[in-house]
């Protein structure tokens, strides 16, 4: 028909629309690329850790600097061998000790034999850390394979043994137990206080200048470096109220550190609950608390738990404040109460990484794996709680 032909509309894209489509495509490509970069990095990180955590740990007692010192003093055959293979090592040691002695003598300080030996040990330490060649020079005994680290061994072996200066025997039983104690007590303090504060600020507090001031400052606190919390914990909990270097002091410090994160996340979650739900509850003659307890909290729970997971993960991984309050690095016992000394996984890992012997690096990688597994377990608990709490929520 005539009319139909005349009215055939032009519905192809014009130049402006084409440009808009191109922009949209470019943007989605950028976003996808960013996601993939993230995924690849994660995979690389994880496979690196797994790769590093797999290998043999040899029983080479002589890689312990103190052991070497002892042997240098008592075993002339060993001295001869070292002299032959790495002459610079022994002379360097002597030189170092001499020069130290001279400089100190100028200031009128006399060194004891033990102090001199310490300087030599320091030098040996640094050389061993720097130079793989030194190990070869010091290698006397045939090496024996003692530990194969991966899979079941991680769980059985490392978890079950205390730290040691011998990589063949070292484990992180005390650190794992310390982290567990710390996390439990931190959760006990931080979650109820954080969530209650969030509820108060969102549901009860009048929206005036004071509450806005508090709001801004909580946000600021979330950005304060963790070492500052460590200093605070040291001053207030360790010294101030004489908790000592205990699990309790550590947990209180960690609670302070993660409180702002929990409060902010919980507030956002509570804020996201539609007001119409509250209104509906109030109109049925509910009190504020009943409304919060039965409607707001269940709906906000996933968001709150996400914040809690983030915060607890942070507490598990923080090292600086724990070092600050003196969570000891060498703890050969499992804390049995909140007032015991303790150490935590990241400190143990850090110590292993700082050791000169390669074997400890392997152990450190295993420690990281265990830390990750710990995190995963913790998060599954949170997911379980969330699922349970949501049984009654039906969107």
């Amino acid at each position: 028909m005539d009319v139909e032909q005349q009215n055939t509309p032009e519905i192809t894209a014009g130049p402006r629309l084409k440009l808009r489509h191109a922009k949209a495509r470019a943007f989605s490509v950028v976003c996808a690329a960013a996601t993939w970069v993230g995924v690849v990095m994660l995979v690389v990180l994880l496979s690196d850790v797994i790769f590093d955590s797999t290998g043999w740990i040899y029983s080479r007692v002589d890689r312990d600097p103190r052991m070497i010192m002892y042997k240098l003093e008592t075993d002339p055959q060993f001295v001869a061998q070292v002299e032959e293979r790495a002459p610079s090592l022994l002379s360097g040691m002597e030189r170092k000790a001499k020069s130290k002695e001279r400089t100190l003598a100028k200031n009128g300080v006399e060194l004891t034999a033990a102090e001199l030996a310490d300087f030599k040990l320091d030098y040996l330490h640094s050389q061993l850390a720097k130079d793989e060649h030194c190990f070869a020079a010091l290698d006397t005994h045939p090496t024996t394979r003692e530990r194969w680290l991966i899979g079941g061994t991680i769980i059985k072996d490392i978890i079950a043994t205390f730290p040691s200066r011998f990589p063949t025997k070292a484990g992180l039983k005390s650190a794992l137990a310390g982290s567990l104690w710390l996390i439990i007590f931190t959760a006990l303090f931080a979650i109820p206080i954080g969530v209650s504060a969030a509820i108060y600020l969102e549901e009860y507090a009048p929206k005036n200048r004071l509450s806005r001031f508090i709001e801004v400052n909580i946000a600021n606190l979330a950005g304060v470096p963790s070492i500052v919390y460590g200093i605070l914990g040291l001053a207030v909990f360790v010294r101030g109220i004489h908790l000592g270097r205990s699990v309790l002091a550590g947990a209180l410090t960690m609670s302070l550190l993660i409180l702002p994160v929990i409060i902010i996340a919980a507030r956002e979650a509570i804020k996201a609950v539609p007001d119409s739900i509250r209104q509906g509850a109030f109109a049925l003659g509910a009190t504020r608390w009943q409304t919060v307890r039965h409607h707001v909290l269940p709906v906000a729970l996933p968001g709150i738990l996400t914040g809690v997971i983030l915060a607890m993960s942070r507490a598990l991984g923080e090292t600086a404040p724990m070092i600050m309050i003196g969570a000891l690095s060498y703890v050969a016992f499992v804390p049995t109460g909140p007032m015991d000394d303790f150490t935590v996984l990241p400190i143990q890992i850090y110590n292993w990484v700082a050791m000169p012997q390669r074997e400890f690096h392997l152990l450190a990688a295993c420690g990281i794996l265990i830390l990750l597994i710990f995190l995963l377990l913790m998060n599954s608990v949170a997911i379980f709680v969330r699922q349970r709490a949501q049984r009654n929520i039906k969107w």
Partner: protein
Amino acid sequence: MVETTKVPEHQIEETTGGNGRRMEMPSIQLDNEQIVRSRGDAPKKTKVIIESKELTIRYGPKPAVIDVTMPVYEHRVTAIIGPSGCGKSTLLRHLNRMNEFIEGVNMDGELLYRGANLYGAGVDPVEVRRRIGMVFQKPNPFPKSIFENIAWGPRLNGLAAKRDLPELVEKSLKQANLWDEVKDRLHESGLGLSGGQQQRLCIARTVAMTPEVILMDEPCSALDPVSTDAIEDLIFELKDRYTIVIVTHNMQQAARVSDYTAFMVNGELVEYGETNQVFTKPKKKQTEEYVTGRFG
């Protein structure tokens, strides 16, 4: 129970029905005046349950309701109409103290509930809201099961023992004309219902509390004509047991369901009277223009 009569169009002029009588009307062909006239006699006077006296409500310094004096009669439907932003919702929310959740609301004048000051010292707002329920413009079922939606309020207020709850839920859903549609899915989410069903669920939830007054803020504004019809039917039925105050933008709805009408403009009560009179013989020119659609 209310008796429902089908009235053929040509009979409408002659029909005189009692107040409780509901006419099924092909509303499209009718104007408001006809609707109202078809309802016949003036409503029988009942006791005043709520009375506002020179009530002024402000948001901060800005008044939203100015010097409103009007009664609400027991077991009658009172409609509040007026152009958008004239303070209808503000007035309605004030009747059960829901305004208290808005920051900076203040009031002058008195609001009496059965002669007692609703805002007087010692009056518990929670108890006020239990007695004066509210249905909102947007259906807002809780994100819980249909059963829970209704059982929550009574359980909370200790109105029913645990074993009586199923019965109460059924009764309330029947009152809200929703039972047949949801009886097989009581434990599914209330949010899985259609908009109209959700609104009826909200009404059922309010009814389950056996309030004395039910406030409705544009309960049908988000609904299709069929759901609207269902809710209007419901209002007719509920009228026997409850006092209803309804805000609506739909003139025909006001004419159909209400016994008394209050017309507001810019926060002031321009006219209040029997619906019959307001729609057929308005005293103010402004009212006439509004109800006939020439103003607003």
